C-alpha cells in the first residue's frame, strides 16, 4: 500500500461526507472517523487523524479526544477481525459466560487483546439488540446468534482460514 495514495483517499472520503451529510459545521466528525477507520482496517493512524483535523478545521487534540472516548474507535492497530462479545445480562443468562470462556481459550487472549497472528482482536460490547437470538457475538459487521461453544470454535476456524488465505 502506498501511503500517499491512502492519505489522498482519506481526503476524498472526508470531502464526500461533508458534501452528502453535513447540515452544520462540525457535525460530521464521528461519521468521518468511521469511514476513515474502515480504510485502515479497524484503526485510525496519527497521519490520518491529522488530515481529519485539518479538513474539518478542528484541533488535533479534539480528534483524539473523540477517538479515545468511543469504544468503536482505536488509535492502535487491531486485528483484521474484531470480535465483539455481548456481555449484557440477557446474553449472560442464556449461556454467554461459556461463550466468553471458549473465546478466551480459543484465541488465547483476554479482552482488549490481539492474537499473535494479528487476525483477531477480542472486545466487550454492550447489548447488540439481538437478545431474541442470544448469546450473540459480532465479527466486524457480521452477527452470529444462538451460539454454543462448538459453534464458536467453528466460526473462528472459518475466519482463520479466510484470514490466512487473504495474507
Amino acid at each position, binding site marked *: 500500500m502506498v501511503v500517499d495514495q491512502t492519505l489522498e483517499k482519506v481526503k476524498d472520503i472526508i470531502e464526500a461526507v461533508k458534501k452528502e451529510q453535513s447540515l452544520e459545521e462540525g457535525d460530521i466528525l464521528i461519521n468521518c472517523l468511521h469511514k476513515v477507520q474502515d480504510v485502515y482496517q479497524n484503526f485510525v493512524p496519527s497521519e490520518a487523524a491529522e488530515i481529519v483535523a485539518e479538513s474539518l478545521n478542528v484541533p488535533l487534540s479534539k480528534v483524539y479526544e473523540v477517538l479515545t472516548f468511543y469504544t*468503536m474507535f482505536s488509535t492502535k492497530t487491531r486485528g483484521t477481525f474484531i470480535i465483539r462479545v455481548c456481555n449484557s445480562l440477557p446474553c449472560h*443468562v442464556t449461556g454467554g459466560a461459556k461463550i466468553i470462556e471458549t473465546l478466551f481459550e480459543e484465541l488465547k487472549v483476554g479482552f482488549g487483546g490481539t492474537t499473535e497472528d494479528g487476525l483477531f482482536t477480542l472486545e466487550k460490547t454492550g447489548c447488540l439488540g439481538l437478545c431474541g437470538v442470544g448469546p450473540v457475538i459480532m465479527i466486524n459487521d457480521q452477527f452470529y446468534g444462538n451460539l454454543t461453544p462448538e459453534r464458536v470454535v467453528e466460526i473462528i476456524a472459518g475466519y482463520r482460514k479466510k484470514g490466512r488465505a487473504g495474507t
Partner: protein
Amino acid sequence: MKTQTVLVSVDSGSVLKGARYYKELFQELVNQYNLDSMVEVLETGSLGIYREGVLVSIFPDGVYYEVCSKDDVEKVVSEHLLKGRAVSALMIDEEIIKKNQPTEEAKTSETRIVLRNVGVIDPLVIEEYIARDGYMALGKVLSAMKPSDVIDILKESALRGRGGAGFPTGKKWEFTAKTDSDVKYILCNADEGEPGTFKDRLIMEGDPHAVIEAMAIAGYSVGASKGYIYIRGEYYGSIDNLNKAIQDAYEWGFLGKNILGTSFSFDLTIRLGAGAYICGEETALIESIEGKPGRPRFKPPYPPVAGLYQKPTVVNNVETFANVPWIILNGAKAFKEIGTPSSSGTKVFTLVGNIRNRGLVEVPMGTSVFDLVYRYGGGLPGGKSLKMVQTGGTAGTFIRPDQLNVKLDGVILVMDEDSCSVEAAKVAMEFFEHESCGKCTPCREGTRMAVSILEGISKGNGKESDLDLLLRISDTMEETAFCGLGQAVAMPLRSIIENFREDFLKHIRKEPCPVCVYEKPKKRKTPA
C-alpha cells in the same frame, strides 16, 4: 395478477437463521413449479416472534409457518402453494400470533400502533408505506393544520415519551415551539443500548418511513427545518434501511425544500454513534452530534430551550415518533381509549432471557409483568421455575416471583432457577462500570467499587457489612451522580440486595450456592 403472497420475515435476528437464504429458496422453487405468475415472494420486517426457525406467512390464507431447513421450505411450496394443503406440522399456533397483537379485546391489526407496518410491508419500498396511509399524516398536517393544532392533538392524546423518562410529548414540542429562535432542530434518539431492548431496531428496520414522517411533522409543529437521527454505530441493518428510506423520501418530495408544494422545508440526516451507552442520554447525544465525546450536560437548560448548538431542540425516542402519524390520522380520542388514563397508547415490550417466546409484543400501557411473562411470553422453557425478573433493562428493578403485579417499563428479562443473584448483580454492575463516561466521581468510582465488592462476595470473600456498603453506594449514586445513567445504577443494585438478600448471605457464609452458574470461581486463563 398474483393471487398469493409469501412473506419471509427478515431482520437482523432472522438473517442469522437463514432468512435471506430461505427467501431465495422460496423464489427458486416457485419458479421451478411454474407458480411465479401466481405467487409473489417478499421480504418483510420481523413480527417480533423469535423461535428456532424463520417465520413465514402466506396471504391471503393467513397461515404462519416456522421453517428451519431447506426441506421445510420445499414442503411448504409443494404442499401449500402447489396443492393447497396446509402443512400442519410446520404451522405456528394461532394463539402465539394473536399474543403478538395488542389487546385481548380487539385482536385486530388497527390497534397495533407502533408496529402497524412492521412485518407487513417491505421496509425498503416507499410505495408500500404510502399504500398503508404513509405520509398521509404529513399531508394532513401541512395542508389543513396549524402548527399549534398538531401540538394540541398530541397534548390531548397524552402520549408520553417512550425512551424511559415518560415526559409528555406534546408539552415538549410546545416548549420548543414557544422558544424564539431562527434555527431549531428535531433529533431522533435511536441510540438504543439498554440491554434487552431491541424495539427501536425493529421499528427502524421494519418501518423506517414512520420515523421520517413523524420527524417532518415535528419540524413543522415547532418551526424546525433540520433533523438528525442518531443511531448506534453497531446497528448496521437500521442504518442501511434508514439511509435508503431517507433517500427515497427526498426523491418523493417528503423531505427537502417545499415539501408537498408548501413553504415548509425539512432536511434530515443520520449520525452514527461509536459504542457509548451514555449517548442515549439526550444531552450526551447532542454533544456527540456536535462531534464531541458524549458526556452529559448540566440541566437545566433542557434541550427545548438550548439543545443542539444551543438552539431549541426536540429529542424523542424512535418509538415515540412512530406513534405520531397514527395519532394525527386517528385522533387523540382513539389513542386515549388504549392504555391507562395517565399514560395512553401501547408499549412495545421485549421479552428476553429464559422465556419460551423470546421477542417483542405491543400491548396496552399498564399490562402487568405476570401477563407478559405467562400470557404473552408462554412461561419458562424446560419446566424450570421462575427465580427473578428484571424489568426496564439493566437499569431496572429486580423483582421476585411474588411481585409480578408491578408497573413496568420496556424490557422483561426472565431468569430461571438456575441463575444466581450475586452473579446477576455483578454482570449488571460490570456493564455500568464499562459504560460510565467518567465525568462525575459518584458514577465512575461507585460502579468500580460495586463491582469489586460483588466480585469478593461471589468468590466467598464477602462480609455482611458489604451489603450495607453496597446500599450506601447506591444511595450516594442516586443522590449525587451527574446524570440519569449514574442515578439509575441505584435501582438494580438496591432492588436485588433487598429482594434477594438471602442469596447474598449464603455466599457470605460460604454455603455452596446450589443454583449458581459458577459454583467455584474457576481460574480463567486471560493472558494479557
